[in-house]
């Protein structure tokens, strides 16, 4: 079959070709393997996150080493530029030499950490590489567990996340250590402390600036509001001068809005300002931090589980799923899954797909549908099995209608 899929059915040249009488049956292996390729393309986060971590370590190590080396060099210069007694010169040089020794150790340690992280990146590439049509069931099981660990980490269920990853042997494939970094900040924010969040912002300053993040500004605003809440107005003003004014150029409206809390005070009944003093503001900060954190590491904003569940539920959702006698094999027969699927759209079908009521097997050209005189349809195989058992008699399982095997007619579904 050499029909270019792009021009299929669109141009006269293709139409001139004799059209195949039946839809070409897709060879299972090739469609399965292309499906696998497509599903691997969904794994961006798996490779991206450890790499961002690795990159961050490399950059940080580099910066600090560079700084140290140049400070040693400039100290040498200092020594050269001034008249020192021999003793002083010797003792300074000696201390520089021992500083270099320390630097060597640091380089070694840094490089060990880098290598470990590189190994982790490599393990993930290898894991993607290991997927093939033969082991896909097992691979998908692992994938589900990865997705669950991701969900638990994002929801801060750390203990269970570690347990699940250890017991399933997937520690290299999940990002527990990275989320621990986030946990510190989140815990502090929950205790209403911004210091570690601010330190995190400083740590990732360049990248946050590039993505025009205003997380730091929001943290500062909250600190300001806390000062107002404590009636420390003078301090609040000093704080604002120091930390809020730099944001004036870009966020003047918000700045003005929040600064007016000085006038309203924490006891205000004005809804706009009352809201600023609500304790929920801290939850908002936690949420915003999580968003920035995910963005920085190249993660999706939502837990992977939600994305996969939503897509899966939508693809599975048919009007039949919500009927009384829905087969228990359909996940949407489950109350909890129905609840989740309720607001989602129905799937769309372009081709008929018929499932035999008796055997639950697909009715296709291999096992075509046959019609009883009462209009009920079952698969050829299931009807033959029934006829063999009952001396040629067919009994419709849904209506009780009885007929002979010879009364059946084949239906053609295109």
């Amino acid at each position, binding site marked *: 079959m050499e029909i270019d899929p792009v021009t299929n059915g669109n141009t006269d040249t293709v139409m001139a070709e004799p059209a195949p009488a039946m839809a070409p049956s897709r060879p299972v292996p090739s469609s399965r393997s292309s499906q696998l390729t497509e599903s*691997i393309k969904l794994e961006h986060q798996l490779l991206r996150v450890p790499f961002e971590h690795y990159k961050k370590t490399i950059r940080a190590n580099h910066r600090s*080493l560079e700084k140290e080396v140049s400070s040693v060099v400039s100290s040498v210069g200092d020594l050269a530029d001034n008249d020192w007694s021999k003793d002083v010169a010797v003792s300074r040089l000696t201390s520089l030499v021992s500083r270099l020794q320390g630097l060597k150790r640091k380089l070694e340690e840094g490089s060990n950490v880098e290598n470990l992280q590189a190994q982790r990146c490599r393990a993930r590439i290898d894991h993607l590489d290991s997927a093939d049509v033969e082991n896909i069931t097992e691979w998908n099981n692992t994938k589900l567990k990865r997705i669950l660990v991701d969900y638990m980490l994002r929801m801060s269920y750390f203990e269970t996340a570690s347990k699940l990853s250890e017991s399933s042997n997937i520690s290299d494939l999940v990002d527990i250590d990275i989320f621990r970094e986030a946990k510190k900040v989140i815990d502090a924010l929950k205790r209403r402390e911004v210091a570690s969040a601010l330190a995190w912002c400083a740590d990732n300053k360049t990248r946050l600036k590039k993505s025009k993040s205003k997380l730091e500004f929001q943290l500062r605003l909250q600190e300001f509001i806390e000062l107002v809440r404590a009636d420390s107005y003078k301090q609040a003003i000093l704080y604002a001068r120091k930390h809020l004014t730099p944001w004036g150029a870009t966020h003047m409206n918000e700045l003005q809005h929040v600064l007016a809390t000085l006038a309203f005070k924490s006891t205000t009944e004005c809804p706009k300002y009352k809201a600023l003093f609500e304790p929920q503001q801290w939850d908002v900060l936690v949420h915003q931090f999580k968003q920035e954190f995910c963005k920085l590491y190249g993660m999706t904003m939502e837990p992977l*589980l939600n994305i996969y569940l939503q897509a899966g539920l939508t693809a599975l959702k048919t009007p039949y799923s919500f009927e009384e006698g829905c087969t228990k094999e*359909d996940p949407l027969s489950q109350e909890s899954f129905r609840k989740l699927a309720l607001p989602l759209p129905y799937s769309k079908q372009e081709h008929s797909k018929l499932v035999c009521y008796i055997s639950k097997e697909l009715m296709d050209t291999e096992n075509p549908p046959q019609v009883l005189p009462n209009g009920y349809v079952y698969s050829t195989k299931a009807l033959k099995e029934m006829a063999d058992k009952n001396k040629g008699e067919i009994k419709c399982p849904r209506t009780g209608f009885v007929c002979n095997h010879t009364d059946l007619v084949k239906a053609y579904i295109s």
Partner: protein
Amino acid sequence: MELKSIKDAFDRVVNKQKLSYTKTHEIIQMLSQELDKALSILQEAPPPQFDHRSILADVKKTFVENQLEVTEKELNVALTKYPKVLEKQLNSDISKAYRHNVEFDTHVVNQIIANFLYRQGMFDIGDSFLAETGDESECSTRHSFVGMHQIVDAMEKRDLKPALNWAASNSEKLKQARSDLEMKLHSLRFLEIAKESQNSQEAINYARKHIAGYADSSSLYEIQKLFCSLLWSKNIEHSPYSELISPSRWDHAARELTRQYCNLLLGEPSESALSITVTAGTEALPVLLKYMNVTASSKKVDWQSVEQLPVAVELSEEFQFHSVFVCPVSKEQASDENPPMMMSCGHVLCKQTINKMSKNGAKSSFKCPYCPTDVDISRCRQLHF
């Protein structure tokens, strides 16, 4: 999947990182050697000729230029390139196909996860999960899954009693579900007895009592095999029937038991509903993402509020739980108001299409769109799939 370009790009990063390490190491090494040298000259030189300034100025001259710059530049290029390769080769943001206005109820999702963990037999993890979520209400299915895993664990220790008991007390339901679990378990037991006992009599007695009842067309062959295997009972490993004692048959039976247990007792799918849905999601996401990428630039589809997906997602056979009939002419999905109708030639269309073809009954016959038959409308009849 061709991961070569990703691997290559990553290799480059690692190489440059190693290079940068070596270079940094070299520089520190050199610097400390130079300083050592300077130090020993200083210490040995007699005070009058002592001129530390010129010596150190030489040292400094060697290092004024930042010699790390070149390697660092190369490393930086590799570091920037790799994420770009990833973005090109993979779907950089799978949440593009996500409807942000739909928020899942966390409580429901957590219950689903707990249920999944229990079903997999990870009771500790499930308990720890519920404790961490702060969800006080215990997962209602835990107890049943404990029962199920006791049976399966016993089977792993080659103890069939609990499994046989369960199957016996659910015999009718199993038959209705067309499951051959009972027969499978009895044949495993039969082979065990044949292996353990001195003569075959005991095994034959067991089979007469428990297996003979299954002798219908589908399992007759299986029973014949079981009996023939008695001829080799002492060394069945080297017989034509060695596959009868392969561990995979035990796994098979255990799997079937799990399926039936979940299905009959708990009304759950034979595979975990969570894993079915996520796997279906894995198949659906590429299609949805492709659709989003194609349409995002041209026309804005209101993805967030559609009633039905704008694109068809063809899931694999195992996800087909319902009969869906799509009229080949109108492309509309059949419904109660618009049921499928079979024409006298056996081809099937939707009622509305047939009405249209017959000009709402004005014509008493029309030509089938798929074959030369002249279709008599009075002979079209509704189908039930």
